[in-house]
């Protein structure tokens, strides 16, 4: 029977324990991936996975990722909303894995809003 063993998990934990202590701070950036039926069909899962990989590399404790439902803009899915504390939320449209990587590296990490991909400033 193939099963994820506790040893596997311990190993994962050892690899990440150095990070865990850093991850309890307050969140100053929130990234929402909209994952309704429309978003999922348009590729939101790939966007979420690319975001996870970038997050794993960036090693920042103040960024939160959440999934939400459809926001009624199905034709522009996959949509991603980036909320930096103190700034207006930016909704990005027609996202894919590469666009997500660019938004993460430029907007989330460096604060440069990627207006080419933006749907609206809310």
């Amino acid at each position: 029977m193939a099963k994820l063993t506790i040893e596997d998990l311990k190993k994962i934990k050892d690899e990440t324990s150095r990070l865990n202590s850093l991850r309890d701070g307050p969140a100053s950036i929130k990234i929402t991936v909209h994952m309704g039926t429309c978003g999922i069909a348009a590729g939101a899962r790939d966007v979420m996975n690319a975001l996870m990989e970038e997050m794993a590399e960036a090693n920042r404790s103040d960024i939160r990722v959440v999934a939400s439902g459809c926001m009624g803009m199905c034709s522009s899915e996959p949509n991603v909303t980036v909320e930096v504390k103190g700034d207006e939320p930016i909704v990005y449209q027609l996202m894919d894995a590469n666009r997500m990587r660019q938004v993460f590296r430029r907007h989330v990490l460096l604060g440069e809003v990627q207006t080419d991909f933006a749907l609206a400033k809310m």
Partner: protein
Amino acid sequence: MRELSLHILDVVENGITAGGNCIWIKVEEDTKADQLKIAIRDNGRGMPLEKLQNINDPFITSRTTRRVGLGLSLLAAAAERCEGTLRVDTSPGKGTEIEATFRHGHIDRAPLGDMAATITTLIIGNPGIDFVYMHRIDGGEFSFDTREIRAQMDDFSLSDPVVIHHLTESIRSSLEELTSHKDST
């Protein structure tokens, strides 16, 4: 949807919206009987009966942002075009179970796709919700339960992207093992 795993991701989100805090996902592949079964159960508030009668109608939805609900009707259509069915059991206050069957070798059956990505996307996007995933291929079985992980790893954070990344790889390789085992027998 291009993959059945995307249908699963979608329908599970329904269960979470219905207020469930634990979701059971079961995938059973029986190549001898030529059947694929996907069952998704939640412990949310259940569905009213009048909605249940019109489950395949995309214009029946509990959403308020627009008047079309596609998730379940898309899954029903996917199952039906593979000589399968969609069955929904619901009891108000207890939860809902959805079971879709497919003829495994049907030419129109979409591939199952990346189940590992579906599971970890659910985990990362829905902190506080538990997921139980069981995948059976003929004799072999893979199971995964976030409640076990939480119990074993006290301060273990399932919202840590590094952990999630490893988890995805780990589930993916377990499923590959399961599939290759099936091919060799």
